[in-house]
């Protein structure tokens, strides 16, 4: 890893003063579980690392009847153990449990989880975010087994690595972004973006902006996450589905279904949402929603199997939410 300057500001104001306007010059460190690896891999070579661990308020979790506001620096374990989260959001609990490593849960933060860089093995071995060798894209003819099946027709072929991103999209969460005295709230599905160039990032955050909080609206909606992963212990998901809906007279309303690890961003399964809207949730309607969820998929040579995983994950998440 390249030598760097390490700063540990005690307040947000101090932190903003330390951040550059340009990507690559400074990096924000939350738990560091991804950043340190990325620096060792020379995926990023900042001159300065700004740790937010000294900014105490960012770690708070505040619950009201209307919403739970989770500070971006709350650890995954703190979120997992929070009574209001456990009571309202099984979709969040399952997703965090899926992260499975005690070290990651203790050290990793919810903000860091959302801002981690893709695990694409070409990206991590020096081929850039768009996975190229001498200008030629590696994924289509290469080993695409863990790459995108949706939203992959541009240059980005990686999948969003976040386990919580799809959950927040399905739950209609809001992400609070601050820059100096200015603050803006961004809906979870607008927080993630497919980068237009190699230099862009996978979220709308600017280099000198800080994700400060995640706001989960408490609506009483049924929700669940289903994750398919290879290992039973610590592993990345192959595919996840997070769902949320309100049961109104036994019928599902306001259905939201978001998929993880299948696209460069959390992927909203619009066709699946439409298929279930207004229906009772049964084995048959859940399976139909699962089948609808693969609409528009454009798998590469080696990841067509993910269609089956999407169908199953959506079906099982919907059934879990009703259970």
């Amino acid at each position, binding site marked *: 890893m390249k030598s760097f300057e390490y700063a540990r500001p005690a307040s947000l104001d101090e932190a903003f003063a330390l951040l550059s306007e340009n990507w690559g010059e400074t990096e924000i460190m939350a738990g560091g579980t991804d950043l340190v690896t990325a620096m060792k891999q020379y995926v990023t070579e900042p001159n300065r690392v700004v740790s937010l661990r000294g900014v105490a308020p960012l770690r708070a979790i505040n619950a009201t009847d209307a919403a739970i506001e989770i500070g971006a620096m709350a650890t995954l374990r703190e979120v997992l153990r929070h009574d209001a989260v456990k009571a309202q959001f099984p979709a969040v609990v399952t997703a965090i449990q899926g992260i499975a490593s005690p070290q990651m849960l203790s050290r990793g933060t919810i903000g860091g989880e959302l801002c981690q860089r893709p*695990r694409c093995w070409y990206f991590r071995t020096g081929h850039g975010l768009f996975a190229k060798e001498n200008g030629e894209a590696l994924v289509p003819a290469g080993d695409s087994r863990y790459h995108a099946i949706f939203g992959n027709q541009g240059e980005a072929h990686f999948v969003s690595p976040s386990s919580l991103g799809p959950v927040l999209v399905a739950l209609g969460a809001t992400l609070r972004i601050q820059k100096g005295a200015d603050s803006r709230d961004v809906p979870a599905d607008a927080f993630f973006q497919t980068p237009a160039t190699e230099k862009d990032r996978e979220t709308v955050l600017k280099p000198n902006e800080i994700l400060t909080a995640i706001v989960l609206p408490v609506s009483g909606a049924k929700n669940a996450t289903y994750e398919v992963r290879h290992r039973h212990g610590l592993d990345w998901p192959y595919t996840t589905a997070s769902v949320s809906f309100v049961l109104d007279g036994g019928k599902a309303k306001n259905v939201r279904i978001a998929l993880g690890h299948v696209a460069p961003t959390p992927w909203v399964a619009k066709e699946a949402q439409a298929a279930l809207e207004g229906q009772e949730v049964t084995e048959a309607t859940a399976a139909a929603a699962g089948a609808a969820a693969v609409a528009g998929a454009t798998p590469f040579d080696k990841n067509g*199997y993910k269609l089956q995983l999407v169908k199953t994950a959506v079906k099982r998440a919907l059934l879990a939410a009703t259970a």
Partner: protein
Amino acid sequence: MATPQWPKMEKRALLGKRISRLDGPVKATGQAKYAYDMNRPGMLYARCCFAPYGAMKINGIDASAAEKAPGVRAVLVEQNMIGDEVRYVGQILATVAADTEEQAHEALRLIKVDFERLDMVLDDMNPANATGKPSGKEEGTVDDAMAAAKVVSEGEYGIPVITHCCLEAHGQVSEFKDGEMTFWPSTQSVSAYAEGMDQSIEVEQSKIHVDCQYMGGGFGSKFSHDQWGVIGALLSKQTGRPVKLMLERDQELMVAGNRPSAFGKVRVAVSPEGKMTAIDADVWGTGGNGGYRMPPVPYVFEGIPNVRNKGQGIKTNRGSQRAWRAPSHPQGCFITMAAVEDAAAAAGIDALEFFKNNLDLTSRPEVYAEQLDIAAELIGYKTKAHLRGQGEGPVRRGIGISIHTWGGMGHPSNCDAIINPDGSVEIRLGTQDLGSGTRTVVGIVAAETYGLPLEAITVSMGNNKYPFSSASGGSTTVGGVSSSTRIACTNALNALLEVVAPRLGVAPEALEVAGGKIFESAKPGNSIAWKDACGLMGPNPITKQGANEQKASQDLKLIDAGVGGVQMADVSVDIETGVVTLNEMVAVQDCGLIVDLKTAESQVYGGLIMGITYALYEEALYNHKTGRMLNGDLEFYRLAGLKDIGQLKVHMMTTEKYDSRGVIGLGEPPVISPGAAISNAVANAAGVRVPHLPLTPERVIVALQKGGILV
């Protein structure tokens, strides 16, 4: 007089009991120092610049900027690579030694390599890439037997290149001081580590010292001092400072050895009586840049009357293969046992019945029959078994069987047994403990021979100043060291009995030892405590040698070779996700006389876990454009953890007929069958063969779709 033969079963105090390993506490508490833990005063850290492409012509290497980088003390450029061709990613081009690891890393990036790319071959699944000389044989009349068969089953099978994945990477600390070189390596071969090195580092053999007390895994990949051993020594000589050179994980996975792949198309003929009458196998695979040896197909069922097989290697631009725990056996076993199970399924015969009905085609039918019955009982075969594909619902359960064999003859080993006048005893031998319990085994054999508690024995090993013992590989260590230790201790004891006999008023032949005493066999009350007996020796210790010479030791029934083992796996297959869950695995294993039942069982547990890992997870994947490993990490190069292995049951064969053969090695056997047993269980559950390991969700789904089970 004591004799070297093993005591009768009923007379043993320690042999065969469940005894905890001597080094357990120091390992569990972190006090055990591995090569990686050796930190010498003024030590430098070395890092290697590796070739980034699988095929390159090197025109020049310019390290001038690296030499001037902060903290850099020396740069060693591999001059012989200039003008030469790189054949796989990771070949060493230069090495930097610096004050810190980070400085060494940074300096590596300043090394400029002038090169041209060359064409590469990476694909080992396509038999058309084979260029090696075919090997194989034809016995009997295969075509006639196929024509006459009731059923001919046909299948394609594959087991990919995997790596050794030693948790402790390869490497060493080297220190050149006062004309002498000391190495603290991670090695499977302490006594022979420095062999052939004296020329390259220009230090006389007698001035090279090697010490390796603890090891974090070798599995066949750590026999040599390797190129980095020489480089570390040269850098230490050049700088006058100790140098630590350990491979990093990606390098470890790419250059420190791997297990060759094997792919096969196999046909098996089954007679109306359910007997296998012919096998026709076409096998290929790659040993990377190294050679390729055809795995044995048919494996164990060598008595199939009509056999045609052909094997051919594919030279690829990947790191070279090295011996991987039970070389060629897991591959031969997987291809054969999967084909056998497919034949049973094609004939509509229960797999266990089919295996038993064909045991006369193996060289130890009685052993396998007994073991199959024990395994079936342990896994609950009768209540759980079904014919292939009879499962229902989204999660389907199945059982799979495999059988295996191994040699395990004790290797050449020498031992010094020392009895001191104060009653203390020491055993010295230049062997190594790879984590398998060698130190404990040596202690148990000595304690048993002297009639002393295990704590009374000092085991000195892991250093090349002690008597020569061979490298640890091929399950040869336990036989070698237990035999040499037994003989040396018997010789030392007899010398002591000569001293003690006059005091007890009998001939030495009338004496024996047990419970810390030397006593008259016919009149146990006529005795002397061990310590008092040693006090009679005078000022000089007794030092006696013992050597394991294979033929002589085998004649004494101290050691033997040739074992059988049976494994069964119980799995669940989620046919909607392709995820395989291992519920339970049973291993029944013979290894002759067992010195320590606990460490023996541990070996089998370890073998099972390693086997489960390659059955379900492991596969080296390569970038098709560069030849670099895509999963040169422990993130996408997956290893099984506790949640992945299910319940493991181990049964060791300990009855007289096994015990009386003497000690036989156990390192390799338990790792041979898991791939086959688990693949067979998945086929039994899912109703379709998943042709290639590892059994990943993507492979299972594709097989289910092809088989029409998933639409």
